[in-house]
């Protein structure tokens, strides 16, 4: 790998990117699973918003959300990692992963509120913009990661730089402790990225 001519090196890089892209494309869900997933989300939203449990209301909601989800299935579930059976995945996400995420985020939000109050009283801030690396590649996963970073104590996402193989986040940090990319990423992201990797690629 040390003495490869530059035209070959360029070609090799292109082929490697192509392979990476193909492996991500293959991992998408099949179409009927995506339709079912979108239908489930839309139907539960319909029940909560309409707020009555009569039979014709539920029937009309199921029919209209089925029509919508049959041609809008690409928007919501484009980035979900394909693993396991559909029923198993839905139960795993709804009963285990989402409560875990809410439990993590509620305590982080409380801690960030108190920490901002402390900084507002004492004014002991040392701000800086640092760049951290993320292992996620999909749009939805990066969006949820950036929003979670904004809600965690002392950090605010400014911009996301996404390329094909890697993604970088620019984070405004209220109290800069380290400039090393690995340590800063570990301190900022915490266990949220590990959680997101189970669902999104």
């Amino acid at each position, binding site marked *: 790998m040390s003495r490869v001519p530059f035209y070959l090196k360029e070609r090799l890089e292109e082929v490697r990117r192509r392979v990476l892209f193909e492996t991500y494309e293959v991992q998408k869900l099949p179409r009927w699973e995506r339709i079912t997933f979108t239908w489930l989300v839309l139907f539960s939203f319909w029940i909560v918003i309409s707020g009555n449990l009569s039979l014709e209301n539920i029937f009309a909601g199921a029919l209209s959300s089925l029509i919508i989800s049959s041609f809008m299935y690409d928007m919501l579930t484009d980035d979900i990692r394909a693993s396991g059976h559909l029923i198993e995945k839905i139960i795993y996400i709804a009963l285990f992963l989402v409560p875990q995420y809410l439990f993590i985020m509620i305590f982080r939000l409380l801690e960030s509120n108190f920490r901002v109050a402390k900084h507002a009283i004492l004014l002991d*801030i*040392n*701000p800086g*913009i640092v760049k951290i690396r993320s292992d996620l590649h999909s749009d939805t996963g990066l969006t949820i990661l950036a929003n979670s970073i904004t809600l965690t104590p002392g950090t*605010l996402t400014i911009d996301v730089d996404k390329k094909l193989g890697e993604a970088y986040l620019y984070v405004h940090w209220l109290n800069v402790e380290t400039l090393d990319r690995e340590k800063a990423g570990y301190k900022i992201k915490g266990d949220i990225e590990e959680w997101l990797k189970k669902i999104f690629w």
Partner: protein
Amino acid sequence: MIEYFFLALGLLVMVFSTLGILRFPDVYTRLHATTKCDTGGAMSIMIALAIYVDASFFIKLKFLILAFLIALINPMVSHAVARGAYKYGIKPKVVVDMYAWDNP
């Protein structure tokens, strides 16, 4: 009884958020105060209302959906404001600025 605790917590967080807006030095640090404390305060007030209101189960659930939407939209708005301010040319008062290294 617990709804008064949530209401008082939301009020306290909102007061400190206002203090942070008044005392922090520049745009980006003020955005910290608005984003986190608005989200936390509004969410706890919504939870207090959902416990307090004397209505059916679905109306309480609608309050929780409102709190969820606040938690979803508020970070996005703060990100848009911060990025727009940086693109407009407002320099942050920071010790290290890696965003300016990569976008000269």
